[in-house]
Every structure is written in structure tokens, then in C-alpha cells.
């Protein structure tokens, strides 16, 4: 019998509408009691002045395994997750080979078990090899444990294939997650299109490339009566399309990444490939619209799109460097900076977007502190000033533009299935 008592924390559990000071008792990996619990003789974590919340979930990360283990592994990526306060991550299938069958899905779970850090949930590919042509074996992958489907890195270009995918995934009550981008419009773009791209002499990706596919997919999902999740939206136009869709009752959900809430295309001025992402960084106007979308519920989730790349690759010329940055180790502080410090939303709403919302979309049994639930718990110091140092990241990669940033909040304890995986605060042993 392993027991752990979290004392005197400010418990925020949006799924159960709980926002109170109290204790949480964990035994054998399960939450047993919530409220006032006697600490005598028990292992106690003093959570005074700290937030005690359901384990954070990042529904969009790239762990690069199998195939690119020099960039990240399931072990290093899940270590970065718990360091950042995340108890669960959903990893994208754009690996080599693609996670598009039961065997590769199974491989992810075996590696995650061996790593024994965060819960890792596999997202399978929508189409074989992410080629956008033939549906992958979704049924088999669901049997292997796949929680959702995405061709992330590519949008499914064919409307017909997408319609079939939505219908097919719906049979298993799994969501299709789409990277909305029309390749023909995006071309070989490598940053937001517009005046700055023109001045810098870099090919651009127009907001329309995202918005057109988003609009199309909303209509397709309606036609298929299926759930659609829109990954990393970036433009004011996308927020408006989503808002209208939700108003009309569409079963569509959306996520936003920290970089799209904090950074603009201005970062590209220095030609630093750490500002090269897909979809690209947009403008301040888009940031305002995204924050508004978070505030009014148009956007449901926060997801990092943690995308590790080798230093040697990210040191290439802007045009030739790969897309993406990492932020699992510091994402929580970034969201707080973007959304709490700007008074866009409050803590319960932030926690909701990082716990129960992604859990419901992925249909995973996580994201709450209900008695009887798996003991995935994150303890957050909401007033912890710290400086981001990429060399201290648990991730194997270093492609991160936030190095040196001052952040105002941090996860100080991460508990996964009742096991403490990160501990930055005192812990009193009972025996």
C-alpha cells in the first residue's frame, strides 16, 4: 500500500467544478479522498500556496520515435513532459515509419511503459504513410490503443478522403485531428505571407491556406456527423470560422500552441530558424483574436506542438531548416504568460483547457481529481519566477526560442499514476 497526502493545496478541478483549499489523498495510484484528511503517519507534500490540479495533458507532441531517436525518444520526451508538469501526452504519427498500423501503435505503448514517466497516448495516421490517399487501418489501431487520428505535418488535401476518414473514425468514436493547410496555396512558404515576408525575401504561407481547409473540414464534419478537432490554429479568420461553426452546433474543437499566443512573424526578421514553424507565426492582430477565442470558449485546448529537431538542422538557412520548436519543458509558464498575466482567462479556465477538455476529446479516462480517478496530479507554483534555460531541458533537442525568458509560474510536482515524477518542493515522510 503506497499512500501520499497532498496537504493544504488550492485544489482546482474544473471537471467537478472544484475550486477550494484542501487535501488530496492518493493510495495505490488512485485518488481516494478529497477535502480534509488527517496527515498523521502519512507521507505528506505541503502544498500551501500552491495549486493542486489534475495532471496536465498535452494533446499534441512529437516524440520522434521510431525513426528520429537522435532528436527525441519516447523516454526523453516523456521526461520533458513530467518536468513541465504534464502527466499525459498524445504523440503524433509523423515518424519513420509512420504510426499507421497496430504494430507501431503498440510499439509506442511498450516504449512508454519502459520509460515509465508520463502517460503517452498514440495518435495514429489518418492515411497510410500520411500520403492522403488510402485510409489507414483505424480499427486495428484503435484495438492497439490509438486515441485519435491525424496526418499532422500535412493536412488531408482531398475533400473526399477527408469525408471518408471522418465517417470511418466516427464508427470508433475517435476524433480526426486536422492540420489545416491547403498545400497548393501554401506552396513552398516558410513564414507568414505579407509585407514582412516580401521584405525578407522569403516565400509566404497565406492565412487563407489554413482558413480554406478549416472551413471545408467544418462542412465535411457536419456532413459526416463526426467529430473534428482542429490542430494549432493561428489566424483571426480561423477563430471566426470556428466561432460560427460552434454557434451552429458543429462538433468541432480546436487547440492553440503557446508560440502562436506569444510570438509574431517579427521573430523571422533575424532569419533565426527557431522562429520557423508550420503553421507559421502570424501577427499581433492574430494573437489578440486567438486570445479572444480562448476567452470566449471558441478554442478548447492548449497544446504545445513540441517538435524537436537537431541543432545542426536548425542551424541551416531559414528556407532549408525544418519547421517546429520545442516547449514541453516550459509550456505551462508560457500559457500563464500569454493568458493569465494578460488577464485573458483565470486559472480554472486555464486548467480546464489543459486537463478535462483534451481528455474528453481524446476519450481518455484522465483530467480530473474525482475520487476513484487515476492519480495524475500536477502541483503548480503560480508565483514562481524562473528563467528558461534550454540546456537544462529534459528534451534531447534545443530548438527553442524561449531560452532566457523570464516566466512567472512553474510545475513543482508531477504525480503520474500515484508516482511522484517531479519534486521541487519539500516532502515529509510519515514513517
Amino acid at each position, binding site marked *: 500500500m503506497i499512500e501520499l497526502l497532498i496537504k493544504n493545496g488550492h485544489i482546482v478541478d474544473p471537471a467537478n467544478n472544484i475550486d477550494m483549499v484542501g487535501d488530496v489523498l492518493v493510495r495505490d495510484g488512485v485518488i481516494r479522498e478529497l477535502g480534509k484528511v488527517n496527515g498523521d503517519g502519512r507521507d505528506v507534500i505541503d502544498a500551501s500556496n500552491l495549486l493542486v490540479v489534475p495532471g496536465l495533458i498535452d494533446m499534441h507532441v512529437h516524440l520522434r520515435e521510431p525513426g528520429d531517436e537522435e532528436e527525441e525518444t519516447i523516454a526523453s520526451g516523456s521526461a520533458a513532459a513530467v518536468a513541465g508538469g504534464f502527466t499525459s501526452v498524445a504523440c503524433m504519427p509523423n515518424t519513420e515509419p509512420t504510426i499507421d498500423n497496430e504494430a507501431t501503435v503498440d510499439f509506442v505503448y511498450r516504449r512508454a511503459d519502459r520509460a515509465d514517466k508520463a502517460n503517452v497516448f498514440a495518435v495514429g495516421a489518418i492515411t497510410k504513410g500520411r500520403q492522403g490517399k488510402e485510409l489507414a487501418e483505424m480499427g486495428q489501431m484503435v484495438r492497439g490503443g490509438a486515441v485519435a487520428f491525424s496526418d499532422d505535418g500535412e493536412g488531408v488535401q482531398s475533400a473526399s478522403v477527408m469525408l471518408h476518414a471522418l465517417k470511418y473514425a466516427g464508427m470508433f468514436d475517435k476524433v480526426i485531428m486536422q492540420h489545416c493547410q491547403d498545400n497548393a496555396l501554401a506552396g513552398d512558404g516558410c513564414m507568414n*505571407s*505579407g*509585407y*514582412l*515576408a*516580401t*521584405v*525578407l*525575401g*522569403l*516565400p*509566404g504561407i*497565406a492565412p487563407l491556406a489554413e482558413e480554406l481547409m478549416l472551413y471545408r473540414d467544418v462542412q465535411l464534419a457536419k456532413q459526416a456527423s463526426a467529430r473534428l478537432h482542429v490542430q494549432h490554429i493561428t489566424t483571426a479568420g480561423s477563430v471566426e470560422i470556428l466561432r460560427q461553426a460552434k454557434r451552429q452546433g458543429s462538433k468541432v474543437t480546436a487547440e492553440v500552441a503557446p508560440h502562436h499566443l506569444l510570438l509574431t512573424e517579427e521573430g523571422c526578421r*533575424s*532569419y533565426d530558424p527557431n522562429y520557423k514553424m508550420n503553421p507559421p507565426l502570424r501577427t499581433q492582430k492574430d494573437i489578440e483574436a486567438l486570445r479572444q477565442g480562448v476567452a470566449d470558449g471558441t478554442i478548447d485546448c492548449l497544446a504545445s506542438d513540441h517538435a524537436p529537431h537537431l541543432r*545542426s538542422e536548425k*542551424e*541551416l*538557412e*531559414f*528556407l*532549408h531548416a525544418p519547421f517546429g520548436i520545442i516547449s514541453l519543458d516550459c509550456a505551462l509558464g508560457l500559457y500563464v504568460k500569454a493568458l493569465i498575466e494578460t488577464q485573458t482567462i483565470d486559472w480554472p479556465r486555464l486548467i480546464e483547457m489543459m486537463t478535462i477538455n483534451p481528455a474528453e476529446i481524446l476519450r481518455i479516462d484522465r483530467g480530473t481529481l474525482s475520487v476513484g480517478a487515476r492519480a495524475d496530479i500536477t502541483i503548480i507554483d503560480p508565483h514562481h519566477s524562473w528563467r528558461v534555460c534550454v540546456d537544462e531541458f529534459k528534451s534531447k533537442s534545443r530548438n527553442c526560442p524561449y531560452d532566457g525568458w523570464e516566466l512567472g509560474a512553474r510545475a513543482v510536482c508531477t504525480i503520474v499514476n500515484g508516482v511522484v515524477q517531479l519534486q521541487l518542493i519539500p516532502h515529509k515522510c510519515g514513517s
Partner: protein
Amino acid sequence: MSQKAVEKIDPGVAKIEAGPQGTETKHSRRKSEPKFTWRRKHLLGLQDLSREELFHILDTAVGFEEISRRSIKKAPALRGKVMVNLFFEDSTRTRNSFTLAASRLSADVLEFTAKASSVSKGETLRDTARNLEAMGIDIVVIRHSSGGAPHLLSQCIDACVVNAGDGFHEHPTQGLLDIFTIRQLRGDLKGLKVAIVGDITHSRVARSNIWGLHTLGAEVFLVGPATLMPSGVNQLPVTVCHDFDEIIGQMDVLNMLRIQFERIGSPVLPSVREYSRLFGLTVDRMKRAKKDVIVMHPGPINRGLEIDSEIADGPNSTILKQVSNGLAVRMAVLFLVNRAAAETKKSEATVEMI
């Protein structure tokens, strides 16, 4: 060589080594202004250059132009220095022009072609640059298909970096030689109307010209199909026009850009015939232009596509003059960046001594 010839050369050399004061010409009109000092050890683009900086390069180039007219075309300004031509894209004229400019200044030149180098084996630009630097390179002239590659280079090496064209971003020495040529013929750029005609989206020449001409007070018109105008073009300091005939009569300069053949038949351009009819400088269209209009082209020319042979070889054409002037401008640029680097080193040494 006779003793007399040597004597004739020496004063010129002294003039060049003396720098800007030694290059006073009819174009240097600001004798009363305080002495200007060039401080940039890299030339990455014209966007950030001030009016004074632009004039300083142009004035310096006037002095160097004179060397090209001598029987012994050599000055010792870069003696003992090594310049590398680091070209990741095909180029004949720009590369040759830089090579010749460097050798006229007595520098040693190293030719580096990406295809023949280890870049194809996966070495990064940084590695290549650091390797070159380890060999004692003083100036790197770089051409690259990615906008910003020269910036990246300037951040990771000590040597001077001169941009010889990066992606769609800038081609500063081409912009400078175009402006030099206009100034040579017209004296002042203020109020001149300059049309840049063709594929603006993919043109680094257009961008360098826009910035330089705008800073020096010329009025820039961009002419071309809507499919070849970049996004946000209206925020540039230019007037955009899709009807060449409407504006050609007011123009003092027509700079005809080269059309890449791979664009023809793609979704942006229907045919050679249509482009030529709408935007080519044909004999017919030329009749609408001012008598003394300056016709420019950065080369190489597609005869019959963007410009008719009769015009390219006609009296208004400055195409070959641009090539000669390119040499003088590139000598000036190499001379100035090298001197700025030397000054930086000197002041660093002084700081160390203190």
C-alpha cells in the same frame, strides 16, 4: 614597362589608399559636410543603408572606375587579403565581376562552388564558413538560394560578408551598380521616375533597387502581372501598375527584369507571347517612351521576351555600361568593408592595450 608608366600609376594608387578624400569627383558635392566614415564590415542589403552610406559607396566607386580605364588595371588596396566566392547558385557574371574586382585590388581569390564542395555531403553553411575562416579568409562573397543566408554567415564568422544575391531578398551590388549607372547619366536621382518591370515576387534585384532608389529620392514604379507582385507590395515605397503603356511615357528609367522561363506555363504566366505583348519592351512600346529614357537590364537577357533586340542593343540601352560599372561598384564595396574590418580590429586592439 617603362619608368614613366610606373610613375603614372603611383599617384592613383595613393589616391585609392587614401579612401574617400582621394576620390573627390564632380559627383561629390558635399565637401562642406563633415567627413563621413564607413563602418560596416558586411554588406547584406540596401534596406538599412542611409543616404550618406549609399553616396559614400557610389563616390568611392567613381574613383575605382578610373582604374579600369588605365593600361595597368591594378591597385594594391587589398594586397595580402583573401576573398572567397562562395556560390551556392549558378552565376557567371556576378561571380566574374567579383573575381575581377578583387584581383584589381590585388586580393587573392578562392573560388568555391557548392556543387563541388562538401555542402552536398551534408555540411552546413556554418561549418563551411568556419572551415574557410580557418584558412584565413578576409572577405566572403556569398550567393545563396535562401533569403537571409548572408545574415546567418555574418553571425558565425569574423570575416567580412558581402551579399551577392540571397533568395528573393536582396542583391545589393546589383542595386548599387544600377543606381551608379543612373547617377552617371543624370547626376541626381531626386525626382527621377524609375520603372522596374517584370517578376517582382521572385526578384532580389527589384528589392535592392527599391530600397536604394527610395532612399536617394527617386520615385519607383513596379510594373508587372498581378500574379508576380509579392504580398504586401502596397506597403513598399512604390507605385504598382499593371498597364505598362499607361506609365511608360513618364519614366526616366526602365529597368527590365529577367523572366525565368520556368514561370512560363505555370499558373502565373500563360505564355511568352502574352508576357511580351503586355510587359515586354518592344520596339512599338518604346515609341511611347521619353527620347532619352535609360533602358537597363541586370542580364542575362531573354531577347524577344522581356526586351526586343533592337532596344537591348539600341542607343538608350545601358546594359553593357552596367556591367562595367558593376566592377567599379564591387571594388568600392570590397575596399570599404575590408577597411571597416581593419578599423574594428584596430580599436579592439586599443581596448585590449588599455
